[in-house]
């Protein structure tokens, strides 16, 4: 069964209609059978927030939510998730109002160069959707498939724990979270408080 032939890239396969609900909107695009979800999202749907880091499942930059589950879009055939509900980083905010996880990544240093950030946000939000009181170990397991070369992960874990506290209602979401534009008159940035229960 093992093939030993070089396969030509052309002629390209026939295009078929691929449809799904992406960030709440029904989309229909033409894609070939060999397209991954990542290919379709970036090149056809236009959600360029989904990043291609390694294309082999080892960096997590392309993570998107498929029916509520975080998935590596580079290792998912588009055809296998047609008709599913897909949420990318672009779909995390409520309109112009950033989600707590987004605000916390900014505020607690969870994002430096930002390339891995969309993937981390999706992994983290998927965790928080089912568990608003994760231990540090649970957080680490949730993001173990995401590679970050800038932060050393520590401030990412802190960001996620801070967002969890907001989800639990212990900490009020920050004011800018409800304003599409940053408040031009901030009350004065302070040293970020460590999220409760996060000893350091």
């Amino acid at each position, binding site marked *: *069964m*093992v*093939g*030993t*032939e*070089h*396969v*030509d*890239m*052309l*002629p*390209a*396969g*026939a295009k078929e209609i691929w449809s799904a609900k992406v960030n709440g909107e029904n989309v229909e695009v033409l894609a*070939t*059978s*060999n397209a*991954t979800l990542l*290919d379709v999202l970036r090149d056809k749907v236009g959600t360029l927030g989904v990043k291609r880091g390694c*294309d*082999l*499942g*080892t960096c*997590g930059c392309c*993570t998107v939510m498929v029916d509520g*589950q*975080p*998935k*590596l879009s*580079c*290792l*998912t*055939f588009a*055809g*296998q998730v047609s008709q599913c509900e897909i949420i990318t980083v672009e779909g995390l905010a409520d309109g112009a109002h950033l989600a707590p996880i987004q605000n916390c990544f900014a505020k607690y240093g969870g994002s430096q160069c930002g390339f891995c950030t969309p993937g981390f946000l999706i*992994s983290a939000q998927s965790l928080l959707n089912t568990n608003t009181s994760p231990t540090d170990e649970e957080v680490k*397991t*949730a*993001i*173990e*498939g*995401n590679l970050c070369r800038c932060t050393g992960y520590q401030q990412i874990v802190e960001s996620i724990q801070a967002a969890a506290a907001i989800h639990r209602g212990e900490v009020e979401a920050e004011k800018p979270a409800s304003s599409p534009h940053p408040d031009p008159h901030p009350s004065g940035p302070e040293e970020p408080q460590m999220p409760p229960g996060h000893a350091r």
Partner: protein
Amino acid sequence: MLMPPFTLHHPSNVEQACEIAKQLLEDGQQFDWVAGGTDLIPNYKWHINTKPHVISLAKIEGTNVISATEIGCMARLSDLTIANGAHPLIAEAASKVASSLIRKNATMGGNLCLDTRCFWYNQGEDWRRSIDWCHKADCGSGADCRVIPNQNTLCVATYQGDLAPNLMVLEAVVHIVGPSGQRQVSIGDFYQLDGKKKNVLEAGEFLLKVTLPKQSQQRIGCYQKLRVRDSWDFPEAGVAASWIAGDEKSLLIASTALESIPKMHDEQVSEALAAGWNGADSVKSLSVAIQKSINPVNNTTLTPRYRKKMVRVLAKRAIEGFLQ
């Protein structure tokens, strides 16, 4: 990393799947099965042995069953890690596979049928061209094996699945289905020594599910995995062991990631039992015997010499894991 063109088929039940396979076989078309895709897609992106057709099992009803006695081929590893009724040993092993994100896609079936791996093989097409290909993916060149040159008969790529040794020590049975019907083999007989052939699946067949005997529920076990990082990495060596508490005669040990197929170590266990079981000392000698029985080659991250040494430590730790 665009994949070469192929047609992806989406059967929604086993019969349809077999029908598509049968049709393709009759047409003389080559094809691959895909479940989660985490193993196949990287290979396809590297243009390794791609086929013009791929049949997806993802939409086949009823293949994601998880219970103490049955696991369907499409059972996601992430679902196996949470308390879902699967044997705790399976949950433990599944939780050590790759990363949490890979586990969301990866499946039990895919893990058992994992392609064998080798650093002369798992590379991009340009890279493999620069070494003039290898035996396993020779692109028509008839290339020699790069690990052990001058032998052109066997592929020594390493099987690096985590679930297989654990299912072995739980005495699982593999259910295979294809155009010519269903058949069952014990998981120990499922694998076939050759990095190319890998297992007993014949053209058109796929792994439908595994079943576990009722008595497997009495077993307690432990799985030891050697890897550099606690995420992403395939096992560099892995040893699974189980027994029915207090009954050394029930001891079963299997290893993975050391040769082209995972391996049961019944022989070494019987020798240890024959010599009279006396706890810690027996564990020690048994671990040494298991180490002696395997022969890793230089085609994964860590050196074969080291991996072989570690088998003893892993075996010891795996058995001690439940002895105490």
